[in-house]
């Protein structure tokens, strides 16, 4: 019974897709099949992986946030400039500042959505412009903070703990915390409840507005964290960093089975979706795909994964119905 439940679930189908992709790429190019290749891939996609968790929360309540990479740039650029001009030097402090800025940005978006009734796409679109512009202004109109200017902060991107990059440890911790919260705590259940049926949730005593505010604040928290990670991993801060990356994050969630109308989706799904989004650009050059074709094929693959998932689900549903009729 449990096995049937497992094999029928969306996450399981995705898991199969991830394994299949991994296997195919590894067969064509064995380089991919190594511990280092995988950790490198995770590190290079730390930003997407971390923000996918926040987006999961936002999408579970039926929202969306396209301001996240602007938040990332604002928080990352701020600590970049602070480090460059020696206002701070502590890595921990830089992280705290980036996260604080991110959290404030997210809370502001959340306030507009939950209190002023602005549709999520509009609120976050407005802030996408606003935060990005603020990032530019903070960079004095276009300065970069480079490796040499970042001092010891950039070591965070290369340091290891127990044989694993610190960046990857952060990803792991985020996922464990989210998995726990979403599955076993009241707050997690409330998020699902709001997304499934906001009115019913309200009636049953859940403060829907507060939940919406909370998920956007958490999203901001993670976007700020991602800002610090981006600066650490690439040892540089630029005002236009990660522009357009929000779509990768949204795609990761949707591929992972998170419903855009809310209520459905899981941490494991978001993880698998983000892994697929990480694997596609990593795999295409390894498969010796011509440089000019890579973007097109990336698009086709995203579309294929979502469509296949829908078809598989339809089959699963039909089978379930047939079984019931018997």
């Amino acid at each position, binding site marked *: 019974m449990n096995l049937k439940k497992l094999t029928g679930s969306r996450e399981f189908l995705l898991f199969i897709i991830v394994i299949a992709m991994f296997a195919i790429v590894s067969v064509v190019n064995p380089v991919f099949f190594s511990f280092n290749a995988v950790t490198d891939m995770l590190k290079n996609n730390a930003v997407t992986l971390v923000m996918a968790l926040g987006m999961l929360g936002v999408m579970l309540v039926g929202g*969306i946030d396209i301001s996240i990479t602007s938040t990332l740039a604002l928080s990352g650029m701020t600590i970049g400039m602070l480090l460059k001009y020696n206002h701070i030097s502590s890595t921990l402090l830089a992280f705290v500042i980036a996260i604080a800025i991110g959290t404030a940005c997210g809370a502001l978006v959340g306030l*507009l959505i939950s209190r*002023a*009734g*602005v*549709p999520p*796409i*509009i*609120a976050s*679109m*407005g*802030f*996408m*412009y*606003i935060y*990005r*512009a*603020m990032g*530019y*202004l903070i960079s004095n*109109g276009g300065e970069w903070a480079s490796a040499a200017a970042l001092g010891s902060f950039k070591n965070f991107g290369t340091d290891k703990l127990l044989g694993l990059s610190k960046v990857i440890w952060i990803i792991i911790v985020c996922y464990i915390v989210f998995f726990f919260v979403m599955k076993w705590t009241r707050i997690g259940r409330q998020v699902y409840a709001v997304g499934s049926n906001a009115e019913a949730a309200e009636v049953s005593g859940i403060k829907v507005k507060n939940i919406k505010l909370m998920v956007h604040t958490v999203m901001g928290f993670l976007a700020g964290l991602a800002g610090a990670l981006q600066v650490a991993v690439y040892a540089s801060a630029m005002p236009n960093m990660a522009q357009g990356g929000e*779509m990768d994050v*949204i*795609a990761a969630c*949707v*591929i992972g089975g998170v*419903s*855009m*109308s809310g209520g459905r989706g899981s941490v494991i799904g978001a993880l698998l979706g983000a892994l697929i989004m990480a694997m596609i650009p990593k795999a295409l050059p390894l498969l010796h795909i011509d440089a*000019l*074709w*890579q*973007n*097109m*094929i*990336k*698009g*086709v693959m*995203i*579309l294929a994964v*979502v*469509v296949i998932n*829908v078809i598989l689900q339809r089959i699963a549903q039909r089978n379930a119905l047939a079984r019931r009729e018997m």
Partner: protein
Amino acid sequence: MAGKSGRSINNVPESPIKKLIFGWEGILILVFIGVNIFCKWFSEYYNMFNLLRQMPVYLAEVFLMLVMAFILVMGEIDISVGATVCLAATMACIASNAGIPFPLVILITLLVGTCCGLINAVILTNFSELPPMIVTLSTQIIFRGIAEIVLGSGGSISVANTAGFKAISRKIGSVPLILFLVIILAVFAAIVLGRSTFGRKVYAIGTNRLAARYSGVAVQKIRFIIYTLMGTAAGLCALFMVASSYGANTTTGTGFEMDAIAMAVFGGISSTGGKGNMIGGIISAFIIVCLRIGLGQRNVNGQVILLIIGVLLIAAVALPNILGSLKKAVKK
């Protein structure tokens, strides 16, 4: 016809003229006048001549808004239009350089755009459980990807014979041709959305899709038509983009989808569906165009202009809501 009037601050009676004056559209007209006064004060170059000369590049995006409004009213979104513009513009240049007569070039460009729209339409109606955002995100990458492949290394093409494109960017008197075209199409789109059965069905889908289906609205057919037309509009936009640049490249049309959405939303069309009308969208399109030109003429930093538009966008949606709830609180 409740719920059709867009964001109105006070519950004014149904008379269309009163609605225009007291509703969101009335405020927009005031804002439009205000923006023009501001720009006149702010920029010494802000005059009718320069305005008409600078407008065409922005007007090309208004074509997108006209159909995007329908999609938003249905409560959906299409973010592939910028990439469609890119692909259609590329094909326009290739066709023109192949020596094809210009009227045929126009046809080919519109056709390429329509085909892109058709692809979205086919996928979205056959897999109606898929969110439009993710489908159009993938096709966005695909369409631009195809343009990248077609353009090859170099990523850019220029039109050898510019005569045809010069013809469509010419002026009648001092008014550019495209302005007439925008106005004609806008009136047409406004009538279709506001006064036709088709338009009412679109609102019905946006308000309650299930109810619309049960009351006999062919939801998928309407979605199919609108997404296909979105592609055609992108083709039209592409023609005028080529006319303003005599070329196309891999970044042509980047971000146009967001510009089109911003214009519509600022005009009172809700992205959650079922609300708003075309008149608001058109007025707001001109507000944004005038503001961008006015600020741009004084070389205001491009990022700051975007920041201002961001603030306006949020304010336009948040203020009526906040005022509305304040009013309620006062009444109590």
